[in-house]
């Protein structure tokens, strides 16, 4: 499973462009980290992979499945992308439990996911009552429970203080190692990039 991405998109005065080739060392899972300063269009790349933003040209192939290009443009809801945004984006009118199962498909092991994320005790809480770290772990859980083919992580640690960062970092390492889900993550923090990335792409 790998990311084979070649896209360009004009946004106002700037052009966002990126090429990630499906390298041989990329077989199987692993985390590809997009690393670079703010404002260079890293989030736009994730949005294009998720289908929220349409590239002007190019192609997006994940794990051999074409999501965009060659006349194909798979709608967002069928791309099977687990997208964790910079802000948790939990649905404010649903409790944590209902947030987690929003995209869940039958047969997904909810307890296992809430277990390793350490959020099992939060299920009856409202999103507004969560700390930043808790909210971000719920967001990760919600993405995982939708049974994605791959994960998109947009600076998931930026809004957190140090101890909370460690919690979420460990959760991501668990996903990369144990769940073996391919990850495309955006960060501007070199330390994060080193620790999470099995491959680092500079933008």
């Amino acid at each position: 499973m790998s990311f084979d991405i070649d896209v360009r998109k004009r946004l106002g005065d700037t052009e966002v462009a990126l090429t990630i080739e499906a390298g041989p060392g990329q077989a199987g899972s692993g985390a590809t980290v997009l690393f670079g300063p703010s404002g260079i269009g890293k989030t736009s790349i994730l949005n294009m992979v998720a289908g929220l933003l349409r590239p002007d040209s190019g192609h997006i192939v994940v794990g051999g499945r074409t999501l965009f290009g060659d006349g194909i443009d798979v709608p967002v809801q069928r791309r099977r992308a687990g997208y964790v945004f910079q802000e948790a984006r939990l649905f404010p009118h649903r409790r944590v439990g209902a947030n987690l199962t929003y995209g869940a498909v039958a047969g997904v092991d909810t307890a296992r996911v809430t277990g390793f994320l350490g959020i099992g005790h939060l299920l009856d809480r409202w999103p507004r009552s969560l700390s930043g770290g808790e909210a971000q772990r719920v967001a990760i859980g919600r993405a995982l429970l939708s049974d994605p083919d791959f994960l998109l992580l947009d600076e998931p640690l930026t809004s957190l203080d140090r101890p909370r960062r460690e919690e979420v970092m460990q959760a991501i390492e668990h996903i990369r190692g144990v769940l073996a889900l391919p990850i495309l993550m955006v960060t501007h923090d070199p330390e994060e990039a080193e620790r999470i990335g099995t491959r680092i792409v500079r933008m």
Partner: protein
Amino acid sequence: MLSAEEWTVVLLSLKVGAAAMIVTLPVAFALAWLLARVRFPGRVIVDAIVHLPLVVPPVVTGWILLLAFGPDGPIGAPLERWFGVTVLFRWTGAAIAAGVMALPLMVRAMRLSIEAVDARLENAARTLGAGPWRVFWTLTLPLSVPGILAGAVLGFARSIGEFGATITFVSNVPGETRTLPLAIYSVLQQPDGDAMAMRLSAISIALSLAALVASEMLARRAGRGLHVL
């Protein structure tokens, strides 16, 4: 405290106001959603037409309704021919006039609240596998509840106060189209109508005040806890 005649007026006003609000609600919400979320050619024109009753003299709106729903009108003729129904001089006609006049207010309140629904949440739902309908039913609609309620109560209050379009369209028939404002107008034409006008005006003011307070409170209650992250 109130005479039988005054009770008739009050109950009729509530009936007309409720009917106008209930019938206009789905139309107003559909228009609000369309104007808030869909970019289509002619959007400005639709927006302007929706707001027309707010600025056009109510007499004109009433007269247009009369032409449309009259025995030879494009709506009135088929209504009469196929269903044997006429709305002229009937409370149903008063409700139509009130609903048309309340439409812009309702659309405005609902549109603001639909626009306030965070599109980022809707995008998150889409990445979780939700199609357009599921996004609408599970996010857009419940999150815009404050505006829907506020718009509904506001529309109800506006309907009860409707005068110009109503009297032009369905006249001033006691027990059928004589709602609060029309009744107040009628008694003011009589030499000794001051006391009754005073009582009916007090009821009008109380109803409007209650509606405005309720609309504000509903919006706040529904809005509590809805805006996080």
